[in-house]
């Protein structure tokens, strides 16, 4: 059926239902002008639409009754039962015509001359002869009976409007069958339309209740199955199996009744985009994929507003003006693409535009303006990290507040709303190419998959969606929990993962601390924050029904709800958001520190530093990224070999070196040691106390002339000696280390290989040169590309060049291009070293002429790459 016609049918039937009620009211209270006006307007609308759609019979009838009503409204005619009857009769005729129209998609043959004549007669004030004459032969119901069914109809129809509002999403699905639905009520003698017989409209509350009951049933079923498992050869086995299947199917069925295509939430978007494109003077096309993807209506309701907001944002901020698009070599028409699909119990919604992308420069400016981060912090961040700032509160990059967006209701609200329903939002942007938001939300909120864990004898559930992975940490194994000033951390793939102890957080221990042999760490992600929750045991995952906690417990933000497990016990559901909030600020810092450690560390940028004390009260610092482990060794396990302290560590002898000469090794108790490791070698630095991990700017202000100290910097407000790890590594291993290293790093005899190290950061040069020297290279350093080129002109030769990318003046890429183009060093391999090692950067690096690309601070990779590069060059 034509959409237009369908809409007309829906609308007219709704109007007619109202008219029936109103006319009956009018009969009782003939002098209510408002009521009359309303009736007139409704009939007028029907008449107008009929004329527009080319339905002459309907129009004729509607026109005639409008005439009558017009006169009544103008006071030319008194309201008499006769007049009301004839108008009601005309309404019945209209209904009948509409019903036929719906079934056959055409008006029935025949005419309504008799009815129209009587209507006209009524309009002319002639006492309308009661319809004694046989009504039109086609009329379905005798006129005399008309008022009765009509009177009944309103009663049936009356609750409808209320239900419609309440059940907005359901209504859409039901929209198709609404005309039929109504007709069924009004003209019972017309054969039920097939559509009507297949669907009924149900109050959403009823479905909600059903869902709750089914959830209970599922829980009970789980309990029964649990009992069954403990009993062999039970008579209950077979019926319980059947119950199990039936319950599963019932659950699925009821879930389906709550499922709605996501298209329902998109219904208003085409109109929105159309209006926007007019208002903003942009050409916008909205592309929608996967509108049929279904999700729980509760979830649908909750994401409707965020989605609308984001689409509006994409059209307003994302897309450029047609002229700008043309200039950028793009088609004038911009696209906003919505894509929805299922992925393992979740629904993924993508909102993409092919506009200008997020302007990182503007974001940075705004970040600085709002004091969200400092200049140097920003320069340490990757583009994606910077883009995430738009999710912060009160952040809008639109320079002017338009009618459309930028009213302070920003992406932070969108993100909060999505996180509230256990979803996540991610953002990818490329300047000039566009922005894509990816939302991941659970299909339903009623039943979630949760990981059951135990801590201090109590069990808790953690929603599976926030769990990234599980890590088992045991004393003496590869993964151990390290502590800095009581705060636990875990090294996870070259990053320091902050840990929270569930025991401490929930104050589960009664004063005394149990040290466990093994601990499980639930790596959890909330927004961009990743942290580990330490628990004693991990059980299975279970499907659970989330129930809200009692009102008196609402203040406890750690729990999002509670549930009953298969064994019948009550269990609390942990709220990862609540935990993240509870660890709050501390969290933000360590997060940034970890990011900084993995990202970059040049002078002036914030670096994670390990503070410790050794010999004297002055604090000392070392970049955390250089330390591979923090250990405490039993003082009595320290042995002496050749007068130097060593300790057996992981089956090998580890030399121990003190920071200050003449440092007394502890004779009893525990000796804290910083372990520096290079492939198979480890050395321990003896310290008095590990103080803290801080994230600070590392500006070495006073260069020390003492060996072992790079210089002094202000860290955490105190003058702190920054130690030179290279010095101690050399001290520990002495000459034999060189030989070993040469062996360890493969065939390239590192000895006498000349390396040029270009980095604008003095700190970094100081850090790397000793390392390379220890590995047997002859190191020359340059603090800028220009200085390096000067060396080239001066006739120096190197076997390999290691260059930083971000440098003032000529950057790494330019340097490589210059060298490749025309210099004596054309054939010298250049290895790039940068904090940004995205695929894009690597490509660019390769094009520029870099032989390889390594992340900063990965010493192993550096040494490996150098030896390989030199080896392959030798072979070539």
């Amino acid at each position, binding site marked *: 059926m034509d959409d237009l016609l369908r809409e007309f049918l829906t609308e007219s039937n709704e109007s007619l239902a109202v008219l029936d009620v109103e006319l009956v009211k009018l009969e009782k209270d003939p002098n209510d002008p408002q009521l009359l006006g309303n009736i007139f307007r409704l009939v007028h609308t029907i008449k107008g639409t009929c004329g527009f759609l080319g339905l002459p019979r309907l129009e004729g009838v509607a026109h005639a009754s409008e005439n009558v009503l017009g006169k009544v409204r103008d006071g030319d005619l008194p309201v008499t039962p006769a007049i009301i009857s004839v108008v009601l009769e005309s309404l019945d005729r209209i209904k009948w015509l509409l019903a036929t129209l719906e079934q056959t998609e055409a008006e029935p043959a025949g005419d309504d001359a008799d009815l129209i004549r009587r209507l006209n007669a009524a309009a002319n004030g002639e006492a309308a002869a009661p319809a004694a004459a046989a009504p039109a032969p086609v009329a379905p119901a005798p006129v005399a009976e008309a008022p009765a069914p009509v009177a009944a109809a309103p009663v049936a129809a009356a609750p409808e409007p209320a239900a419609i509002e309440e059940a907005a999403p359901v209504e859409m699905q039901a929209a198709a069958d609404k005309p039929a639905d109504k007709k069924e009520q009004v003209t019972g003698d017309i054969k039920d339309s097939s559509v009507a017989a297949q669907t009924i409209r149900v109050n959403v509350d009823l479905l909600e209740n059903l869902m709750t009951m089914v959830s209970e049933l599922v*829980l009970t079923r789980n309990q029964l199955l649990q009992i069954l498992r403990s009993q062999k050869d039970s008579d209950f086995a077979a019926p319980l199996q059947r119950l199990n299947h039936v319950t599963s199917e019932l659950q699925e069925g009821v879930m389906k009744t709550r499922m709605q295509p996501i298209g329902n939430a998109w219904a208003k978007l085409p109109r929105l985009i159309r209006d926007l494109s007019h208002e903003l003077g942009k050409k916008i096309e909205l592309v929608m994929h996967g509108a049929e993807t279904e999700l729980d209506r509760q979830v649908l309701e909750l994401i409707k507003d965020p989605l609308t907001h984001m689409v509006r944002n994409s059209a307003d901020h994302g897309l450029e003006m047609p002229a700008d698009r043309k200039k950028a070599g793009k088609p004038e028409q911009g696209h906003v693409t919505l894509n929805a699909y299922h992925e393992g119990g979740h629904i993924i919604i993508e909102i993409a535009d092919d506009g200008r992308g997020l302007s990182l420069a503007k974001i940075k400016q705004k970040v600085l303006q709002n004091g969200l981060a400092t200049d140097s912090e920003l320069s340490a961040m990757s583009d994606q990290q910077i883009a995430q700032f738009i999710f912060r509160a009160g952040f809008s990059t639109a320079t002017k507040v338009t009618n459309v967006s930028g009213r302070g209701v920003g992406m932070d609200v969108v993100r909060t709303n999505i996180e509230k329903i256990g979803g996540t939002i991610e953002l990818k942007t490329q300047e000039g190419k566009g922005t894509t938001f990816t939302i991941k939300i659970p299909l339903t909120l009623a039943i979630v998959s949760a990981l059951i864990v135990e801590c201090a004898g*109590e069990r808790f559930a953690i929603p599976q969606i926030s769990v990234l992975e599980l890590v088992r940490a045991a004393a003496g194994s590869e993964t151990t929990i390290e502590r800095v000033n009581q705060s636990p951390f875990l090294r996870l793939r070259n990053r320091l993962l902050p840990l929270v102890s569930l025991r401490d957080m*929930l104050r589960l221990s009664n004063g005394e601390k149990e040290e466990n042999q093994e601990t499980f760490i639930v790596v959890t992600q909330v927004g961009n924050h990743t942290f580990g929750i330490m628990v004693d045991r991990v059980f299975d995952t279970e499907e659970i029904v989330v*129930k809200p906690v009692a009102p008196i*417990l609402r203040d406890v933000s750690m729990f999002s709800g509670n*549930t*009953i497990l298969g064994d019948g*016990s*009550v269990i609390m559901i942990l709220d990862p958001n609540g935990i993240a909030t509870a660890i709050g600020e501390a969290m933000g810092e360590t997060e940034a520190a970890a990011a900084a450690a993995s990202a970059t560390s040049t002078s002036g940028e914030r670096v994670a530093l390990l503070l410790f004390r050794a010999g004297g009260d002055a604090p000392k610092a070392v970049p955390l990224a250089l330390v591979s482990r923090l250990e405490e060794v039993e003082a009595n396990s320290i042995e002496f070999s050749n007068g130097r302290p060593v300790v057996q560590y992981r089956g090998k002898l580890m030399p121990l070196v003190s920071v200050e000469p003449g440092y007394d090794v502890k004779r009893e108790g525990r000796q804290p040691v910083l372990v520096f490791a290079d492939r198979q070698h480890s050395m321990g630095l003896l310290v008095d106390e590990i103080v803290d991990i801080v994230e600070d700017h590392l500006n070495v202000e006073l260069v020390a002339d003492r060996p072992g100290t790079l210089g002094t910097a202000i860290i955490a407000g105190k003058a702190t000696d920054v130690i030179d790890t290279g010095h101690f590594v050399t001290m520990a291993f002495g000459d034999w280390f060189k030989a070993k290293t040469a062996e360890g790093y493969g065939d390239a005899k590192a000895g006498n290989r000349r390396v040029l190290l270009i980095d604008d950061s003095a700190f970094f040069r100081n850090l790397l040169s000793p390392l390379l020297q220890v590995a047997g290279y002859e190191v020359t350093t340059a603090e800028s590309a220009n200085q390096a080129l000067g060396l080239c002109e001066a006739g120096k030769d190197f076997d390999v060049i290691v260059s930083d990318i971000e440098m003032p003046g000529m950057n790494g890429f330019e340097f490589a291009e210059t060298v490749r183009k025309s210099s004596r060093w054309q054939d010298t391999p250049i290895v790039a070293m940068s904090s940004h090692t995205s695929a894009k950067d690597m490509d660019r690096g390769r094009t520029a002429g870099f032989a390889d690309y390594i992340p900063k601070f990965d010493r192993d990779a550096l040494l490996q790459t150098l030896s390989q590069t030199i080896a392959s060059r030798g072979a070539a």
Partner: protein
Amino acid sequence: MSNVRDFATGTSGVASGDARDFVTMTIADQLFGIPVLTVQDVLGPQRITRIPLAPAEVAGALNLRGRIVTAIDVRRRLSLPPRAADNQGMSVVVDHKGELYSLIVDAVGEVLSLPGDAYERNPTTLDPRWREVSGGIYRLQGKLLVVLEVARMLDFKRAEAA
């Protein structure tokens, strides 16, 4: 307990027009009563899940036929010492604003119909912590029954303020 029973038989005939029915219970040898209509269930010892970070008065949560019920330790609410280890306690489940709460008491007695003329308002000398949750006192033969006001008992903020 026998006292109560005697008393019950003794008063059942005297029930005047404004008599009210109470479920009686004992906590630390003190008799308490809760209006019978607010009581949903009386349970024996239950497996209770602790709720960390909850107010001290909250003993935990328990499963009552698929509904989660918050358990309140009445002794703690009244600042009484914990129960003897051999007494596992009993639970009186009450409905408060659509939520179920289980009040853990030492023992539950029976239902008494108490005449209005045996009722007294809270004496001023009553411990403030008790006065808070007490809705008055009934004079029984040889015993006093304290009426527990469920709504006030679940209002912990008042307890903290007091």
